[in-house]
């Protein structure tokens, strides 16, 4: 249960804050090198993992830049016509145009707001219901099947229903985004809770820790990695549902820009919307990364459960 555990393998990479896995299987774990002064030459490997924040960020850009190059080539070698695949520069131009008219900020701002609010509501609810279903056999038996069925209702199908129940306006849009964010958190949390290490739960219970306190002191920290990957997926799904949400009587937002450009055949704006959604998706995801690092700092290298 105890000694040395995490030092051996799941070591914290000091840059990304993420533990390093077993890929460099035959070397001494990276974190052990830290204060170790000059090492015998054999231990320095060409493949050693880069460690500064900047290098990591730059390396992360390699693939996107390559993709951009491929895109540029495909769009200029005549294989695709400009309506089919506009050049990256044309997309940039469309962005510039929207930026000048001030519309870009409106689209980005309102969409981000919808996603953030919806995500907060949906994931909080997902955590609550997931905890209930994960911990209470009764809740699981009664509500599990229904929630499982609702999970497969597509975003587009919610549109007419929400229109009926909530009408148009921000409320229904945020609700739809929240529905999207709910399920990944619900699923991962309820599943992870069923697999928390029984030994430490039993130990905590033997010390009279029950109910909410058991949840917050033992079970929640133990499933934290699962919660975080649930949150990641929830955020991604919030962005996915945004597009459907912005079919609900909307005239601004990136989802609107996307469908509108698709309908109008403005492929440049369409690609702009896709790129913006991807970039915003990744940026908001990075916030979850910050939260993850904070929890790792707070709770030590992530719990092994």
């Amino acid at each position, binding site marked *: *249960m*105890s*000694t040395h555990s995490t030092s051996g393998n799941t070591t914290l990479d000091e840059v990304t804050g993420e533990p390093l896995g077993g890929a460099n299987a035959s070397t001494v774990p990276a974190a052990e090198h830290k204060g170790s002064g000059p090492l015998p030459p054999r231990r320095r490997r060409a493949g050693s993992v880069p460690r500064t924040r900047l290098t990591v960020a730059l390396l992360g850009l390699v693939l996107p830049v390559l993709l951009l190059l491929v895109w540029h080539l495909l769009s200029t070698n005549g294989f695709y016509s400009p309506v089919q695949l506009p050049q990256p520069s044309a997309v940039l131009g469309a962005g510039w145009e929207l930026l000048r008219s001030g519309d870009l900020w409106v689209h980005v701002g309102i969409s981000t707001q919808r996603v953030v609010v919806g995500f907060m509501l949906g994931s909080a609810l997902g955590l609550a219901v997931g905890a209930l279903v994960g911990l209470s056999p009764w809740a699981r038996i009664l509500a599990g099947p229904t929630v499982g069925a609702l999970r497969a209702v597509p975003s587009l199908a919610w549109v007419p229903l929400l229109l009926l129940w909530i009408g148009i306006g921000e409320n229904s849009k945020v609700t739809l985004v929240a529905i999207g964010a709910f399920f990944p958190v619900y699923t991962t949390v309820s599943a992870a809770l069923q697999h928390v290490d029984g*030994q430490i739960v039993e*130990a905590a219970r*033997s010390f*009279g820790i029950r109910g909410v306190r058991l949840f917050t002191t033992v079970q929640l*920290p133990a499933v934290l990695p699962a919660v975080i990957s649930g949150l990641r997926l929830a955020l991604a799904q919030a962005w996915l549902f945004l597009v459907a949400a912005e079919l609900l009587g909307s005239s601004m937002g990136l989802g609107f820009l996307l469908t509108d450009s698709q309908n109008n055949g403005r492929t440049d704006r369409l690609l702009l919307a896709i790129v913006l959604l991807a970039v915003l998706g990744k940026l908001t995801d990075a916030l979850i990364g910050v939260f993850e690092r904070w929890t790792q700092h707070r709770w030590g290298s992530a*719990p092994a459960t």
Partner: protein
Amino acid sequence: MRHVLTRPDTALDAAAVSFENLGKSFPSRDGRYEQPVLTDVSFRVEPGEIVTVLGPSGCGKSTLLRAVGGLSAPTSGAVRIDDDVVSGIDPRCAVGFQEPRLLPWRTITKNVELGLPARTPSGTGRRRVAELLDLVELTHHAGHRPGEVSGGMAQRASLARALARNPRVLLLDEPFGALDALTRIRMQDLLLQVHRADPTTVLMVTHDVEEALVLSDRVVVLTRETPTSPATVAEVLAPDLARPRSRDDTRLTAMRTHLLRLLGVER
């Protein structure tokens, strides 16, 4: 010795534990039959007594302790604490498990705090945890996580957590197994010191015959006929000597040889 511990206001009087024809079996691997582990275990631990349990590996000592703590229900018979049949986790007990079972994401201090009785005022709690960490010699590692301390240190943290509870029945499953000779003696002394300050009922599993003899009012020996047959109480020995006892006391040496023979060791 050292200063007397901060006593939580919730401290209660020691309780009696009685085993009444306790039996426990586990379903076999294929679920087709029940494999009996303990059978017909009956004895009584008086309030404030220190009783140790000896027996071969896998005979059911941990199972016995778990039954008292309400962590696993007996198949037949019952355990009573004072007059109540134990059913479900019993708030009167504190368990020091055979494995340290610390929460890996909490510091040693925070892990020990878990043991404090509910509604301990935070000042009292902090003081008591600090004292206990001092007693188990972990003050220097109070801020470490379980993954950063040695096996023996984790075991001592687990002991401190159980002691923090100040229970009416203290259940300890090989609390000193991972300690070197000196630390072991110091921890035995610590247990006696805590017990003196607050004479709770202690039921403790150990493998060390000498330890059993030095510490306990009575030693319960579990034995079984073959490794697959259920264990039961073979003998209850009462080393009727005043404490502190010298490890070299000749009366103890004789009992030691007797107990070892009971356990199958011929010298």
